[in-house]
C-alpha cells in the first residue's frame, strides 16, 4: 500500500511528504534500539519520539514513513533532515494503540485482498 493510499484512508497530519514508497507493514515502539532490531524495511514506524535520531533510525532501517503519535510537531531541523532523506513524517492526535490498530487493519486487509 502506498503512503498516499494510507492518507486517503486515515486522517493524518502531514509534516513532510517524502518518496511515495510502498508500505508493507508497521512497527510501534519508542525504543530506538528495539526499532533497530525489529522493524522491517518498508514499515511505517509509529512512535512518540520527535528528536533527530528518529531520522537516522528510519534511514538506516529503510523506514519510509514515521507516524508521530499523541500529536505535536517536530523541530525545523528534524523536518529539514527528513526532507533531505525523503522520509515521510505524519502526525496524529491519537495514541500508539489506536494508530497501530487502524494501520494493522488497513495494511493487513490490503494485503489479504
Amino acid at each position, binding site marked *: 500500500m502506498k503512503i498516499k493510499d494510507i492518507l486517503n484512508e486515515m486522517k493524518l497530519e502531514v509534516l513532510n511528504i517524502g518518496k511515495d514508497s510502498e508500505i508493507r507493514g508497521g512497527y510501534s515502539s519508542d*525504543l530506538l*534500539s528495539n526499532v*533497530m*532490531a525489529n522493524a522491517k524495511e518498508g514499515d511505517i514506524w509509529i512512535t512518540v*519520539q520527535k528528536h533527530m*535520531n528518529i531520522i*537516522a533510525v528510519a534511514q*538506516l532501517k529503510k523506514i519510509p514513513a514515521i507516524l508521530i503519535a499523541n500529536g505535536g510537531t517536530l523541530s525545523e531541523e528534524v523536518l529539514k533532515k527528513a526532507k533531505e532523506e525523503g522520509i515521510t513524517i505524519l502526525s496524529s492526535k491519537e495514541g500508539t494503540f489506536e494508530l497501530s490498530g487502524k494501520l494493522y487493519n488497513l495494511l493487513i486487509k490490503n494485503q489479504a485482498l
Partner: protein
Amino acid sequence: MSIELSCKLSKYAHIFEDLKAEDIMTKQVSTLTADKKISQAKEMMKIKKISGIPIVNDENKLIGIISIEDIIKALETGEMEEKIEKIMTKEVISLKKEDNLPSIIQKFEMYKFGRFPVVDEKNFLCGILTKVDILHKILDKFNLIYLHDKKRNSILNQDLSLITGEKLDIKKAEFKHQIDTTDISRAGEGAAILKSFLINKGIDSEIARKVGIAVYEAETNVVIHSKGEGEILCFIKKDKIIVRVIDNGIGIENLDQAMKEGFSTAPDYIRELGFGAGMGIPNMKRFADKLVILSEKNSGTQVEFVFFLKDK
C-alpha cells in the same frame, strides 16, 4: 596570581619535577668585583645587553648584585664613579642549585626580580637564571614530549585488526568520522553517513544496512556513555568490511553485564529519548558477522566489527 600559577603548574608538576635550577640557569655569567666602578657596571650591561650583574669576591662567592635600577639611581645622584660596593644590594636573594621549578617560580612571583643568581651550598656562584631561561627549558621539555607523541602516533597508526590480525593503516582508512559527542540528538549521524558511503562504493545494500545498524549502536554508546571523544573508521577489504568505533572515554566496567540484553546504565532523561533499552551491544552482535570489544574502566573503548562481503 601566585596561587593561580602554582595551580596551573601543579597539573604538569610530574613533567618538570626533575628540573633543577642548575639545569635551567645560564652558566656563563658576567660578574664584577665590588671594588669596580659603577660606570664599569653600566658599560658591561650596555655591551652584553644584560640588566643585572652578580658581584663576587676573589673566590667567586656571591656577595651582592647590581641592577639597571641601581645604575639609574647612581646616575641621578651623580655617583657613577663610586665603587659598586657602595650601592649594590648586599642581601642577595639567590637560588640554590638544587631548587626545583615550582620553588623557582614562587621566588619570581614573590620578589618580582628579573633574574636570580644561582649558588651552591657554599655560596659560590654557579650561574644566573632569568624568566627567559625558564621559558626555554619548558619549551625544550614540550618539544621532547611532542617528539615522543609523534613516535607513539606512528606506532598507533600501524595497527592490526583485533579480529583477523590483518594490517590496518589507520591513516588510510577509507572512511573516517569524528563523532559529535556533545549533541545526543545527532547520535547515529556517522552511521548513516557510513551507510551511504558504502552504498556509493558499490557495497551490497543489505550489508551496508547491517553495517549501519551495528555502527549506529556503537556510535550512540559513545555519545551517551563514553564522556569522551570518539571516531568511526572503516576499512574496505577484498572480502570484508572492518569497522572500528573507538573512544577515549570512561570505558565499560563490566562487559559481561553490558552484553546482556536489557542491561543498561543510561540515565532516565536518556531513556525518555528512547535510548538505553539495553539492546545496544546485543544489536551489534546480531548485525555484525564478528565483533570484538576491548575496554577497561577509564581507558576508553574499542569496538571492532567484521562484515563479510558475499561472493558475487
